[in-house]
């Protein structure tokens, strides 16, 4: 497979990587986590979510782990995903890149204060 959707890293994929930084999550868990960490601005639909997950799995930035039930959501077995070390590195590189832009923005006096 050729390298495809992850260069440059789309924000959906970046958010998914971030959402998995704390714990393993299933698809719906990722969706809710992303919504939470973006203040409700990004609600991933199933198509976008799983197409991003597929790309990330293919490139080994995340890995599928054993399926299990989520006690809070009933007895259906769910597929869980975990951040790999490569994924963590990618997320960090992306965060650095964004941080670099922030510095530029600050230097240009667009962004004030020491926020971030």
């Amino acid at each position, binding site marked *: 497979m050729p390298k*495809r*959707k992850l260069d440059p890293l789309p924000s959906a994929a970046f958010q998914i990587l971030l959402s998995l930084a704390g714990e393993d999550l299933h698809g*719906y868990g990722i*969706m809710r986590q992303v919504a939470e960490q973006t203040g409700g601005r990004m609600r991933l639909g*199933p198509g*976008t979510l*799983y*197409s991003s997950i597929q790309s990330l799995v293919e490139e080994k930035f995340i890995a599928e782990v054993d399926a299990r039930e989520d006690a809070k959501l009933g007895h*259906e077995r769910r597929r869980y995903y975990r951040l790999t070390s490569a994924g963590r590195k990618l997320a960090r590189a992306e965060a650095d890149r964004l941080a670099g832009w922030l510095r530029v923005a600050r230097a240009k006096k667009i962004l004030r204060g020491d926020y971030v």
Partner: protein
Amino acid sequence: MSEKIYALLLRLYPSHFREAYGDAALQLFRDRAHDERGFFPKLRLWLDLLADLAISVPREYRHVRQAFAATSAPRRLAGAPWLFVLEDESLRPRALFFGGVLTLLALAGFSMAINHVGSYAANVAVWPGQPASRVSPARPRVAKPSHFESGWRSVLQRMGMFLPQARHPKPPERTAAMNSAAGEAMKLDAAERQLVIDGAIANLKAHYVDPNVAQKVAEALRAHQNNGDDNAAADGSAFADLLTRQMRDVSHDMHLMMVYSQEKIPDRRPEPTPEEFARYRKAMEQNNCTFETVKILPHNIGYLKLNSFPDPSVCQSGATTAMASLNQADAVIFDLRDNSGGEPKMVALIAAYLFDHPEYWFNPREETTRQSWTSSPVPGNKLADKPVFILTSSSTFSGAEQFSYDLKMLKRATLVGETTRGGAHAGAFHRIDDHFGMGIPETRAINPFSTVDWEGVGVEPDVKVKAADALQTAEKLAENKLRKK
């Protein structure tokens, strides 16, 4: 319900995606639907889903295509053709079945269309035309045209009245059927092939309507012969089909054909014997010349049910009497629902009553000559300006179609009923030897109305009703028309 809708929408994704994540996507939908209740959250959920579909479906397909392009690039260099499909799952059996049925239907439709165009022989067989008088003695005929050109003979044939089989083998119903009907395949040798091709070329040059095309067809036949293309034809029927194809390839004339008959083709046009003629005359007298009904309907509407257009040499007085008895009518209904044609002369003779001046009378089978005008006005006739209605059915054929077509095109009659059967063209049949003969269209009549006549398509009625209801409808139309006057 909404889950089913979403499951259907999921099918928009490429199969590899559905297989990998279809269930998970559906599960996610269930979870959201479970958590987001109430009108507005539901609405937001669906808006999210639709936006998501709009963005992610094209992206998935784009990805699939890019993947194909990437993997196919090195193969293309190899020079061999390479096909890719967007769907990588195998076809469902149902899809294969419907595909197969559809293909068969398309093939059947196509072959029917081809047969329809090539129905020359059928028309030769049933359309009587080609009166002997038209055959110019100056023309060098290799063989005289066969028996089934005579008009009244075919009328009798249709009535099942004569034709001893020994003298009159059945005319070819259709080339393919006829050619393949030869059970005991006739042995073909080079000499026979030479004779048939020579005969075909001589006939084409003598009779074909366009000498330039005749020359081209002749050259093509000769070229195929010299190339040895004809040697493959194992028997008479295959050879006839092959020559037919060769001639049509060049001329694009579907009425040009070579015919093989297993039965011996009579070596000359059998002139009607006095005995046969007497039988015809008797049959016509018994049937009132097929003028089945002549009467005056209420509101003084004349009604004539005519089941053929018989030979004027036998039935002229009958026709004159019938037309005379309608002379005082205020409108005329011609019932041609059971009329399968006959002599063009009779068609023109009756049509003459409907005009007060000579009118160009189009006959697709006759060269345009001075005789192509009706002999109007008919002395003492009062029908020239009366409304005319013609009842048609799907069995109205040949000469009856000419009557209907011409009067419709001249806006002289209102056609009521069904689309007619569609037989216009004929050509002469030319015998080459005992087993081979060919059909050649010899006329190019001027059609003043349209570039096409009713061959193969029939004549469309002005008022479409079932044949059974045609009389009632025509009567009403006639009444209305008379009331307005």
